[in-house]
């Protein structure tokens, strides 16, 4: 079995979602750096996480440089603030040419802007809606 390529991944935001994703990536032997403004957020990282953490504001380009963003294969903006996610994603994509940039987007109204710049998006509201839809369809199916 051929071994899968190991990525260099940078995650912005070490909340519940970011920290779990970081744990998963590091478990799969990818190199991972998690950046968060708030050091206490690193407590969310699972025990098996073996990557690096950087405490700092990712909208400060020096912090991104310290994380060697120019070498990243994957950049994920996962803070709870759409504007911050948009900003750091743009910087990763346009300034540092990171090949894969994924951003969390809370307000679906912001999606067109992210897509215009070819930033891939994760929108919790839409995911929850589609899950809810599937459940409702299943219930409707069963009631037939």
């Amino acid at each position, binding site marked *: 079995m051929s071994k899968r390529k190991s990525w260099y991944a940078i995650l912005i935001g070490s909340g519940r979602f970011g920290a779990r994703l970081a744990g998963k990536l590091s478990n799969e032997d990818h190199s991972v750096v998690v950046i968060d403004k708030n050091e206490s957020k690193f407590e969310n990282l699972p025990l098996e996480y073996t990557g690096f953490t950087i405490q700092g504001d990712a909208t400060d380009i020096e912090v991104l440089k310290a994380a060697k963003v120019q070498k990243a294969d994957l950049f994920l903006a996962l803070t709870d603030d759409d*504007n911050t996610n948009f900003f750091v994603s743009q910087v990763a994509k346009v300034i540092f040419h990171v090949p894969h940039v994924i951003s969390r987007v809370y307000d679906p109204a912001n999606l067109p*802007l992210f897509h215009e710049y070819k930033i891939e998006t994760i929108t919790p509201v839409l995911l929850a809606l589609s899950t809810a839809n599937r459940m409702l369809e299943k219930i409707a199916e069963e009631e037939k």
Partner: protein
Amino acid sequence: MKVVLAGGKKITYYLAKNLISKGMAVTIINKDKAFCEEMAKTLKALIIHGDASNLSVLKKVEIFDNDLVVALTNRDQDNLIICELAARVLKVNQVFSLINDSENEQIFRELGITNTINMSEIFTGVIEQRLASYPIINLMPFEEGKALVIQIEVEEGFPIVGKWLKDLPFAEGALVGTVNRKGNVFIPHGDTVFEVGDRLLVICLPVDQTQTLQAITGWD
């Protein structure tokens, strides 16, 4: 044509006041409700309470393509999204942004927001210019900036070369504390004659800084 000022506090107020006095129509969008109420009382401007980085709020303002949008928040990421929404979605031609972190100016430019107002860069430039016009080695403020110690090296052509200290047109609030002549440091007297290469420690009050430096260097 109207000017839309998005975010910001004091700067927004003063800018709005200026623009209104020049006869321009001004709209202010701000997240802070108390600020909006205050502005509504003091300015002849349309005040909208809301987050300008939210497209639905911007749409409420009815911005037309010949309007001017200025992003003035203290977070560059908010300013960027305000500008992007205004320029790309609302097709506004003239979009300006305040830049808080000067390093972000390049990012804004690469993303197509070229009308940037880089506050810290402007101030740095002004200060540097002021300092660079004199061959100052070091300038240190003491006593909360009420006293300055300036380290300066005497160069060829300075009017003080070959002159006695007591003949120099120094202000009352300035004196030469020490002279370093080829590593030999001494305290000058009225009859000390300055030479090229002397390194001086000059103590002065901030108000006398310009006059003192002019007396030493002869520069404007």
